[in-house]
């Protein structure tokens, strides 16, 4: 398991950890009660391991962090956004497989 590499993003650390980060950042918007989000969890964990040092990978709980959730108008989960230089450059809504995430990530490395 690579889950120790997965960062927890919050309304408080989003500016420094995501928007001002030196590397691209993958943010998984999720919640405890969302079945498909749980299904996606292991894929996100695996990506954190595979891209360690090149992309920072983390999760943002939409229940606990309404600020970022509303700012990016996330109204459906799981939604995964890739941030680069403070901007959203890729977005994947719903459960997708690892290959699809890799394709999206590799475009920006």
């Amino acid at each position, binding site marked *: 398991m690579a889950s120790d590499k997965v960062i927890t993003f919050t309304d408080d650390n989003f500016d420094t950890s995501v928007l001002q980060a030196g590397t691209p950042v993958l943010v998984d918007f999720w919640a405890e009660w969302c079945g498909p989000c749980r299904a996606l969890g292991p894929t996100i964990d695996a990506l954190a391991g595979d891209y360690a040092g090149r992309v920072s990978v983390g999760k943002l709980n939409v229940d606990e962090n309404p600020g970022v959730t509303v700012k990016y108008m996330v109204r459906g989960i799981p939604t995964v956004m890739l941030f680069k230089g403070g901007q959203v450059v890729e977005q994947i809504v719903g459960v997708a*497989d690892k290959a699809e995430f890799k394709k999206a990530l590799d475009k920006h490395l």
Partner: protein
Amino acid sequence: MAAQRREVTIIGSGPAGLTAALYSARANLKPLVIEGLEAGGQLMLTTAVENFPGFRDGIMGPDLMAAMREQAERFGAEIVRGHVHAVDFSSRPFVLTVGDDRIETQTLIIATGASAKLLGLPSERALMGHGVSTCATCDGFFFRGKPIAVVGGGDSALEEAIFLTRFASQVTLVHRRDAFRASKIMQDKALANPKIVVEWNSEVLEMLDPAASAVNGIVLRNLKTGVQKTLAVDGVFVAIGHTPNTSVFKGQLAADAGGYLITHDGSRTSVEGVFACGDVQDHVYRQAITAAGSGCMAALDAERYLESIQPPPITEAASAAS
């Protein structure tokens, strides 16, 4: 990674796939179950299931699926994460490609189910995750105190509409006809709910507003009068039915015009040794219990097929005679 060899491989982990896994495991065939992207299937997106026999007070869909999974695993089914990218039925054993892995299997049970259908509007695609959803239990939370619309007129549309009244200020059901297809009990429940209103004979022309990256309305057209209007909503839940997950088998298995796999003599498909069960081959009943029943049939059919192609072990009497 080296190829894995199996006697029975099952694709899909809904009621059909897990029941097939349970029966194959109990037949000591050590089945491999490849979960698929929507692990647990459509019941993972539901709340209370009140029509699965044996649960007097109902059971939550995800709990039912967790129990089915544990029951199959208890008898030796191996359930792995993954999504089948390619199948090759031209040689024996069959070959499946799952990511970087290769699986060789004597028999294949297809239980890939069906996924929610979309309207197909470009604006719908653009606003997915920003107000357009196919999963009320996932996304209802985002519409607390807000007006939303549900598109469709079947049982799932009405069930979603009723569920969404927990959050939304108002739920407008948009339906193409002047009567629902849904069961009587569901219609009575929905129409009695003060938060639910219905736009009959109406279709969705456009979802607004992709430029704002959020839903703020939908454009409806009344099919009888031709009159168009914009309905201000913050979310749209699309519940217009399902489409079978069969694209990976295209050209290799007989399917009907809707893409559903065609089965004969129980669960047999057009390729000997390949069986299908659940919603991927059923656009009529589509219930958890019928899916589970057909999963059992597929496992028994696969078991008999394996017996037919493998000569029985040589008994002592037979070897003494030779």
